[in-house]
């Protein structure tokens, strides 16, 4: 009988093989699913994974879609590496979109080139301040950051609703809940004609490299790592957990805020009640799917974006309902996470595995 046995060391081989196995399993199950629905599986899978990227417009869309997720996820990975459970990227993103809007609306009639950088900076500041609240509560009052950041998400959401229904509402908009359209000077320029890809998509690779340098090549990164792996060792080494904690909180908040700023000055072009369809939450999945490594996060974020675009196209081209694409997306994430079991465990035919824990004592 097959059972699982714990490995003495995590398997390096399976770190790389597990995602491939997951994708193979998804394709197999997906084919079965589509076949049961009387849809040609090959056609469905091609529509899901290949068609979205068949032209420059599609590639641009993938970059637009994954940019906010990636910025949030890269920021979150800093927190998670330090053992700080910031669940508040969604709220920090929204806070950033609101503060950006304040600047954008202030400059709505003026013809200055400063308004865009100023608006982006305001977004980062807004996100950082919002994350700073959670950091302050954690380090001054010992509150649990998981709870405070979750609650701050609700606060940000309602702040946004209050804003678009009240003071930030377009005065000429028949009292509909959205801000005025931003001036062209406060809109991120389009990089390539015929696409929606804007300047903001270039921020992701820059942030990616900076995060990698910070985590892998700097002393600060070492401190973050140490704090996350062993808070006691960090204290023994004289690292200030408070200082590191504040830094990663503010950095991840600023990145989430930047994501919010990019959304309102980029593809949306105004403040709307639904700035984010849950980018800050998707980023948590992406951060862990990418194993908290910048490159892994990039791959995971692009994959998340791709299955979203594919889901839309499958509805359009094949007329499948949204719930089917949702099942397929869920399958992929389920397999990706569950295949990771092989990193810590191995399949064996001998007794003594995970499934027969009583016998493990006898095994030497």
């Amino acid at each position, binding site marked *: 009988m097959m059972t699982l046995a714990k490995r003495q060391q995590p398997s390096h081989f399976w770190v790389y093989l597990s995602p491939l196995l997951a994708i193979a399993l998804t394709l197999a199950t997906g084919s079965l699913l589509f076949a049961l629905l009387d849809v040609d599986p090959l056609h469905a899978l091609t529509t899901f994974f290949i068609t979205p990227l068949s032209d420059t*417009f599609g590639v641009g*869309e993938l970059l*637009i*879609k994954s940019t906010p997720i990636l910025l949030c996820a890269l920021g979150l990975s800093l927190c998670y590496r330090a053992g700080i459970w910031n669940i508040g990227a969604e709220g920090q993103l929204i806070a950033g979109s609101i503060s950006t809007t304040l600047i954008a609306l202030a400059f709505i009639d003026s013809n200055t080139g400063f308004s865009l950088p100023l608006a982006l900076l305001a977004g980062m500041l807004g996100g950082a301040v919002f994350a700073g609240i959670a950091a302050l509560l954690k380090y001054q009052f010992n509150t649990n950051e998981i709870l405070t950041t979750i609650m701050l998400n609700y606060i940000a959401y*309602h702040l946004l*609703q*209050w804003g678009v*229904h*009240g003071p930030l509402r377009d005065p000429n*908009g*028949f*009292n*509909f*809940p*959205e801000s005025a*359209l931003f001036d062209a000077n406060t809109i991120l320029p389009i990089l390539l004609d015929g696409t*929606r890809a804007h300047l903001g998509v270039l921020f992701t690779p820059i942030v990616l490299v900076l995060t990698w340098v910070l985590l892998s090549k700097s002393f600060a990164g070492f401190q973050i790592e140490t704090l996350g792996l062993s808070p006691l060792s960090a204290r023994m080494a004289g690292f200030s957990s408070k200082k590191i904690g504040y830094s990663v909180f503010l950095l991840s908040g600023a990145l989430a805020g930047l994501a919010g700023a990019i*959304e309102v000055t*980029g*593809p*949306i*072009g*105004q403040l*709307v*009640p*639904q*700035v*984010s*369809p849950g980018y800050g939450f998707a980023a948590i999945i992406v951060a862990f799917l990418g194993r908290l490594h910048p490159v892994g996060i990039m791959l995971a974020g692009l994959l998340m974006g791709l299955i*979203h*675009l594919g889901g*839309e*196209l499958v*509805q*359009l*081209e094949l*007329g499948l*309902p*949204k*719930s089917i694409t949702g099942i397929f997306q869920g399958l992929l994430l389920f397999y990706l996470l569950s295949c990771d079991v092989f990193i810590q465990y191995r399949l064996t035919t001998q007794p003594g595995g995970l499934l027969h824990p009583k016998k493990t004592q006898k095994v030497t």
Partner: protein
Amino acid sequence: MKIITSFLLFFSLLPLAMADKKPKPLEVGFVYVSPTGEAGWTHTHDLGRQHIEKVFGNTIKTRYVESVKEGADAERVIMQMAKGGADLIFSTSFGFMNPTLKVAKRFPKVTFMHATGYKRAKNVSTYFDRIYEARYLSGVIAGHMSKSGISGYVAAFPIPEVIRGINAYTLGFRSVNPKGKIKVVWMNSWFDPAKEREAAESLIRQGADVIAQHTDSPGPVQGAEAAGVYAIGYHSDMSVYGKKAHLTSPVHNWNGFYEDTVNQVLKGTWKSTDTWEGYSANMTTLAPFNPAIPQSVINQVKQLEAQIKAKTLHPFTGPITSNKGKILAKKGQVIPDEELRKMQVYVEGVEGELPN
């Protein structure tokens, strides 16, 4: 009538069909904000889609994308449709307004129909129904059926469309129950079954014995059914969710309008315009009545309905005062459309203050 139009259409397209064995059907796309489901806003539009599919058969081809978020995703979905060869696109949520206009600029040959918005372009029309007419009538029924004189209203967002509905309902309610009071609870969401049901329950505890709603879920009707009070649904017939409670629902009917639009596009007579029609154009109606409603009430409602249809009765005819005592319309005066479109005030009889 439908048979005749489709018959005519068949013959008008026959030469085209004979010239080419496979004439390219008119591609019609629908962008929905929520799942098509069994009830609710999107459901009514999908009924319209199914209707035109039935009427036009092979001359058109429809496709749709559901649950499209109103942020940055909307523009992409609309663009993909236009790029994919759609000739006519219906985008059916307010949040799709600016995305629709952006895509319309890039695809001048595609016809766009945006529901509930106010911005138009050469190839973008806007449309909506005067659901407040049916709301007024549902208020009349509720006013008759309420014993406590208190009605609860589960409302989504404090935007003009919703406030207009609350006011029309209140005017109808108080036209037969002059001391009636309407209590409003704001959900800040369009669809949240649990929260809406809870809101209905709390309104019932405050004495409300008819629950009306301007949200998408069956939660309020179910809450009313469980508590043994009456309910007015919304969007489509919600009687399956509360056989005893459900009095009626103000209902949108897009079938005829969508059929006309497709006909115009097929014939090349389509022009950008704004459509805001109700009973008179058969775009607004009430769901079948609960047998518990006395015949006398039904007779009165039928009579009012005929007057609204003939445009001799407008629900927003004065005297109307706000719940702060401000005069909104003098006796005999009708609140003009421009005011109705941006309505941001409660009429007398609605309790409390508007948020903001």
